[in-house]
């Protein structure tokens, strides 16, 4: 089995995440698209780990999972905060973050 299929799957997943990030306005979908892009990088790392015969790639992917978890916690906290102050999950409400509270 050749690694080409895995590379194809990783690039397709990255692109699907990019499309979701560009075209949607729901904050939850944006969050899950970012997670999907990070996971596709994880898949790429695991594939390279097997291609090169080096277990270090798996270790980096494992550390990436920790980074993804930190990102998830912060993003969900921000969504909850925005929902409390604006009663909306539209990504346009992020623009009011810079102006402070009125």
């Amino acid at each position, binding site marked *: *089995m*050749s*690694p080409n*299929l*895995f*590379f*194809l*799957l*990783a*690039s*397709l*997943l*990255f*692109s*699907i995440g*990019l*499309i*979701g990030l*560009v*075209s*949607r306005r*729901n904050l*939850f*979908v944006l*969050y*899950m*698209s970012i*997670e*999907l892009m990070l*996971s596709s990088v*994880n*898949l*790429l790392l*695991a594939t390279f*780990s*097997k*291609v090169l*015969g*080096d277990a*270090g790639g*798996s*270790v*980096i*992917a494992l*550390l990436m*999972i*920790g980074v993804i*978890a*930190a*990102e*998830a*916690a*912060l993003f*969900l*906290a921000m*969504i*909850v905060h925005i*929902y409390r102050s604006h009663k*909306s*999950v539209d990504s346009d409400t992020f623009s009011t973050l810079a102006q402070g509270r009125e």
Partner: protein
Amino acid sequence: MLEISIFSILALFMLGGSITMIMSRQTVFSAFGFLVAMIALAGIFALLDARFLALAQIMVSVGAIVVLSTLTILTINMKLENLPYERNKYKWMFFAFILALPITLLMYKSTTAMYESFNTLEVVTSKVVGKLLFSEWVLAFEIVSILLLAAMVGAIVIARKEIPKLEIPKQEISNKEEGV
């Protein structure tokens, strides 16, 4: 042959789940698509002989991240008419697809041009991963642990409710001073 069929099923689940995630209007359906994609990704990790990574993917991504986001979605409980109004969703998706197509081709061509076949690697068990994690990658491991701590504190600070400031009436303070 068996590997290719398992890979096709998992890849089908992954692509279907992620496309469901970006297409569906209801946020809960997006979360379910994301869940399917993450479970299939764990299966693909297992197919790549990274056993510990597959287990960590199931425990952290599926068990923590997806469950946490589903819980947040269900807690917020947006009505369908209160969701953001996306007027030209499919038009934007089409433009983003055109934008992403050359990037996809570039990624695919540049990664496949380097390597032709898999190396013969023994199965990456938790023993190998643990030895590497605490010898070669120990600095990165510590940095990730500090990052997780900072993210935990930051999430608590961002998501907490505003605490009203305690106002101590001046009368009491002056009374106390007189008593002393």
